[in-house]
């Protein structure tokens, strides 16, 4: 089951009624039962068996790690159960994600959200290994942490310390919280149904037969795809966070106005934040501070001097992280190229950091204010759109060919000669899409300003005049109804990130 399916709109009220009708102590178990029903709808009995295997192995291993830690067992004795459990669960993830590609005769058994819950479970296990949490003794509570239905198929990837107390508290109904939750859900559907699903139409039309289009139309499609992907993923996350709020569970945010980033590193800090934090805490630091890379650092510092030398271990770890991220997105040359390009550009920015700093001083352009800030934001946006060629093209060859057309056969007249009208959207629909994208950017601009003032978007919205709040909600709802319900032949598509 996906948030975009009508049956979710039946499931959610039913789950909420059962949850709030339960006695406080029983509510976490009601939530677990609702999560299992949700997952059963989403992936069938087989998916339930696979997630149960993860819950049981993680539960037992974490308890064992806790016991070993209490008995002051040496690190290497604690490493064995951790490694075995991680290997088993990442093995399952790899098997179900890629079996169909590697051995086509096996077919592809889809386990929805397997990446999200595997990463979340692995984080829990590593935290137990590092002594950062007391392992959960109640297996049903751990099962709820792993399978909590709003985040099950699309994230965010939460840490145990972030949501466990809320999950097990059995919070009752709270109007204030519910209002915040409903507003997040409405915004999420707006992003998905009005922006993502509309933008998908011309994007799919161009990308599937890019050979028929000039560079300008291809660039237009990739630009739209950048908004589509953001709206699709952030929309799903917004619905997940909103549903969580209804039952009193505050999940971590996954996006922080990514299109306002001032550098590629900054962009990745604002995009899919919970995966980025996971990769940083459990992979990047482990690699960069590992003994082999520590030795490499000492050798390179002697060979290349302190500044350059100390960057080399960080660069190696960066490449490793982006390659893992690329493999997570799919096993293909284009995702590998995407990962290597990101890792390469970020490493370059690391090495050229002192040079840019000097240039900024000489030109007196401050990246944090005025023209300097606008320049940095636009430059980053262009870079992000360029990288999206590799994310969206059907193959590496297609991505390179699309880039070649963009650079060598731009043909800008195609943007005005009616070609865009043949891509599946009418002029009115393009106008609606454009207005919706402007609304999204305006919302992010307000949120960006709120963060600078030490607040957040929700607080800013709550302090706005009731009439303004009402008008905004009414406009967003009207657009959802107009675009998502009344458009002829319209069927909401699956969330892009639900395939992971």
């Amino acid at each position, binding site marked *: 089951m996906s948030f975009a399916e009508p049956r979710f709109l039946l499931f959610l009220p039913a789950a909420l009624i059962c949850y709030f009708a339960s006695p406080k102590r029983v509510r976490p178990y009601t939530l677990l039962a609702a999560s299992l029903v949700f997952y059963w709808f989403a992936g069938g009995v087989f998916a339930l068996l696979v997630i149960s295997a993860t819950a049981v192995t993680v539960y037992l291993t974490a308890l064992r790690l806790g016991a070993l830690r209490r008995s002051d067992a040496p690190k290497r004795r604690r490493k064995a159960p951790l490694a075995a459990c991680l290997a088993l669960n990442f093995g399952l993830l790899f098997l179900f994600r890629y079996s169909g590609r590697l051995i086509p005769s096996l077919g592809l058994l889809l386990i929805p959200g397997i990446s999200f819950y595997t990463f979340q479970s692995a984080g829990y296990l590593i935290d137990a290994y*590092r*002594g*950062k949490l007391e392992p959960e003794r109640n297996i049903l509570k751990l099962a709820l942490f792993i399978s909590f239905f709003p985040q099950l198929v699309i994230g965010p990837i939460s840490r145990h310390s972030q949501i466990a107390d809320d999950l097990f508290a059995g919070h009752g109904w709270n109007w204030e919280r519910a209002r915040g939750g409903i507003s997040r859900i409405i915004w999420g559907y707006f992003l998905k149904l009005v922006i993502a699903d509309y933008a998908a139409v011309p994007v799919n039309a161009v990308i599937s037969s890019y050979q028929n289009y000039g560079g300008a139309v291809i660039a237009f499609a990739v630009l739209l795809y950048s908004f589509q992907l953001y709206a699709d993923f952030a929309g799903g996350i917004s619905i997940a966070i909103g549903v969580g709020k209804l039952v009193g569970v505050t999940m971590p945010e996954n996006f922080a106005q990514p299109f306002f980033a001032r550098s590629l*590193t900054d962009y990745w*800090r604002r995009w899919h934040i919970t995966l980025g934090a996971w990769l*940083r*805490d459990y992979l*990047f*630091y*482990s690699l*960069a*501070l590992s003994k082999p890379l*520590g030795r490499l*650092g000492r050798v390179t510092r002697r060979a290349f001097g302190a500044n350059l030398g*100390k*960057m080399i*271990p*960080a660069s190696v*770890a960066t490449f490793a992280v982006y390659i893992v991220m690329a493999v997570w997105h799919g096993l293909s040359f284009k995702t590998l190229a995407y990962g290597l390009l990101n890792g390469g550009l970020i490493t370059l920015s*690391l090495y050229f950091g002192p040079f840019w700093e000097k240039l900024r001083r000489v030109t007196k352009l401050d990246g944090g204010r005025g023209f300097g800030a606008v320049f940095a934001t636009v430059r980053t946006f262009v870079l992000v759109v360029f990288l999206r060629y590799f994310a969206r093209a059907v193959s590496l060859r297609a991505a390179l060919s699309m880039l070649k057309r963009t650079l060598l056969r731009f043909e800008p007249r195609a943007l005005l000669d009616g070609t865009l009208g043949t891509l599946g959207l009418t002029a009115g629909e393009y106008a609606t899409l454009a207005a919706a994208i402007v609304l999204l950017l305006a919302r992010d601009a307000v949120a960006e300003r709120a963060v600078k003032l030490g607040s957040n978007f929700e607080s800013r919205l709550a302090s706005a005049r009731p009439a303004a709040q009402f008008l905004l909600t009414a406009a967003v709802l009207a657009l959802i109804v107009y675009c998502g319900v009344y458009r002829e032949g319209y069927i909401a598509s699956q969330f892009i990130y639900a395939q992971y």
Partner: protein
Amino acid sequence: MEKLLEILKSLHPRVDFANETGLVDRGILDSFDVIALVGEMNDLFGVEVDLEYLEPENFNTVDAMAKLLRKLGATL
């Protein structure tokens, strides 16, 4: 303490480290800085900052870093 401030100044010369209270939370120190910082701390103070100490609260202020170093047996 002076040595610690010197390491930090070499990473970001323009930051007022002595009075900053949210070095990690406010994004002044990113993960690359933390890696470089921990490498220098290990070398200069003869300690081993383990992964379990890589939490924002240990790196948000100079005092927190000094406290961590003392906990690991360094003399500042």
